[in-house]
């Protein structure tokens, strides 16, 4: 039952070829880059990636050839716009063809929420009239049984695994997470299992001192790994700020396939795990990303 393991072990055990993997569910923060890089290192193939705003993590996994399908609302570079590996795959089939199941943020969120709720679909009025919903495998126009009004039925999506990066977590996987939440909670509850990377593993007492901050209960979690800077270059509130420069550099360097392969080789394939990746960035750069000005949450008392 021991859930604490290395990232290498966690990915080896929980992420298999052909699986549906939700990641980048925080929208633009707490993106589990370290876990994504480990998936690349272990050479996973034919993954379906799920996420609303994918940050550049999807671009990296696509460029590395791990992906056959993307279920997303937006695949780009949140710092610089275009995600070139995504474009090359969709437009030219390089390194391989990928299918894209296009969504809006709300439809992908509702698909995950339907999965989390255990219902086959959830209704909404979004995107009616949009080309998005034409001939869509998961979006269907229906009539409301009460009012007869047109609605969009969003079919449920249950990832095999959802990967989250959080601030802190205990050894059983009970995770404290703060900042904007995006679709992380829906994705965690929809998944068959959850893989949590965290800035620090803490005693269970820390988690239990503030149960309202436990946004993922441990019984959903299959593996826990302590991975400081595990969201780099995206931020983890209170632990790591965004590395803005990284997005620009990645944008410039990956404009060509050759550039991308050079980046991939240097930053992922030849780094032996996340520590090697951090080593490439260098101490000084990481130090600059550490928060300087503490902003403590006001006390809350659970006493009786």
């Amino acid at each position, binding site marked *: 039952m021991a859930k604490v393991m290395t990232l290498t072990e966690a990915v080896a055990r929980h992420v298999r070829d052909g699986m549906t993997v939700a990641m980048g569910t925080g929208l633009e923060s707490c993106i589990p880059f370290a876990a994504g890089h480990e998936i690349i290192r272990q050479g996973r193939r034919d993954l379906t990636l799920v996420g609303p705003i994918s940050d550049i993590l999807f671009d990296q996994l696509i460029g590395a050839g791990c992906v056959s399908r993307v279920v997303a609302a937006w695949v780009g570079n949140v710092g610089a716009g275009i995600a070139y590996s995504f474009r090359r795959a969709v437009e030219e089939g390089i390194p391989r063809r990928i299918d894209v199941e296009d969504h809006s943020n709300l439809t992908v969120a509702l698909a995950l929420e339907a999965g989390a709720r255990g219902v086959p679909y959830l209704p909404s009025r979004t995107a009616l*009239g949009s080309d998005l919903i034409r001939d869509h495998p998961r979006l269907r126009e229906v009539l409301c049984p009460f009012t007869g009004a047109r609605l969009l039925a969003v079919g449920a999506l249950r990832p095999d695994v959802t990967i989250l990066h959080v601030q802190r977590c205990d050894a059983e996987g009970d995770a404290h997470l703060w900042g*904007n939440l995006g679709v992380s909670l829906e994705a965690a509850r929809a998944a068959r299992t959850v893989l949590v990377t965290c800035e620090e593993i803490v005693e269970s007492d820390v988690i239990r001192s503030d149960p309202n901050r436990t946004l993922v209960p441990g019984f959903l979690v299959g593996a826990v790994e302590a991975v400081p800077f595990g969201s780099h270059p995206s931020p983890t509130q209170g632990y790591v700020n965004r590395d803005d420069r990284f997005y620009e550099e990645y944008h410039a360097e990956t404009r060509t396939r050759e550039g991308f392969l050079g980046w991939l080789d240097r930053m992922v394939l030849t780094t032996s795990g996340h520590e090697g990746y951090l080593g490439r960035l260098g101490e000084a750069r990481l130090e600059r990303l550490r928060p300087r000005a503490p902003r403590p949450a006001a006390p809350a008392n659970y006493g009786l």
Partner: protein
Amino acid sequence: MKRPEPAASVSAAARRQVMVVAAAREIHDGEVVFVGMRLPLLGFALARALHAPHAVGLFENGVIRDTPPVAPLITMGDPPNIAGALACTTLIDVMSHLECGRVDVGFLGGAEVDRFGNLNTTWVEDEGRRIRLPGSGGAADIASLARRTVIAMPHERRRFPERVGYLTSPGYGTGGRWRHEVGLVRGGPARVITSLAILGFDGESREMVLESVHPGVTVEEVRAHTGWNLRVSPALRTTPEPSAEELAALRQFDPQGLWTG
């Protein structure tokens, strides 16, 4: 066909200032605003400081805040947008306010906007080649569900086709009662703020109408940069220059001139 050059009679920085100020003016006091990055973020800060002190901003990543970020940022998920927020919650939670009709105005941009205010952020053609863009993000949701939207775009002919190649985010579709017919219960674009002009939509046909040209811009320039025979309002005016107060606020909220410099 050679594309017309963008009008150059006014500096790019001044144009952007006019756009931000115009965006700010679209926000009324007490409104709930679905804010985006860059221009709308700055416009929201301006509006709060000047004429809409009780406006509240929602961000699709789950942030609710009424003050500018505590430091410059790139995305709505960056630490300066979280620190000091009123609430941090989920995407569905904030988008539920949209679906409930509680969001007065949402800001949108895109690669293309057409005659009826439809937006494309998915597929475009460039000299015969199909280019895949990042996709909807939350734009289709905001366009579908907000009480009204404001679109901000650089005014370029390739970005203003008569009909978008792919309808990502619904404006008025093919015009008239199209929104009602497809099942959208409210909303649609109220304004398009471009680098050259401010445009509205006809109350019946829902076709885009030129309402105001920015200082130094002519109607002919605007029409030359628009991909259809653009209607011009009989009440056409010139966009008022930013006031001294507005310019001061702009300098306060964009001290490094990241957007308006």
